[in-house]
């Protein structure tokens, strides 16, 4: 039973990490257009925050929209 709990926790941690990989890949392309130095500007950081939040908003809206079609 403890093994099951451990596996489930690992599994959901793994899903969160894979989503972070996907979002970073997507938002980095859009929010960091050029590489001038190794730091993030305030504007880039704000864009990354907006990007992941708007993506999640879109995801939730699509799920709700599909549910209302049924």
């Amino acid at each position, binding site marked *: 039973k403890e093994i099951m709990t451990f596996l489930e926790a690992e599994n959901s941690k793994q899903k969160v990490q894979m989503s972070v990989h996907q979002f970073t890949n997507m938002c980095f392309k*859009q*929010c960091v257009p050029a590489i001038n130095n190794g730091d993030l500007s305030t504007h880039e950081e704000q*864009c990354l925050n*907006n*990007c992941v939040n708007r993506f999640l908003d*879109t995801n939730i809206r*699509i799920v709700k929209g*599909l549910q209302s079609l049924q």
Partner: protein
Amino acid sequence: QIAQELAVANVTELVNKITENCFEKCLTSPYANAQEGCVDQCLAKYMRSWNVISKAYVARIQQASTSGEI
């Protein structure tokens, strides 16, 4: 139960693809504003497109199957 798991996989794939496409078409960097109206229209357009593609593909499979190609 296998059929059910496949159905879940299909809905997940559909939600992911619609979210990615509608995020790309409706929201642009710096992602400050939500675009809920556009997302709703995009979802409707995507579902209609899915049906058009599905019909066209099944028609091709049946045509190839009738003509003995496959």
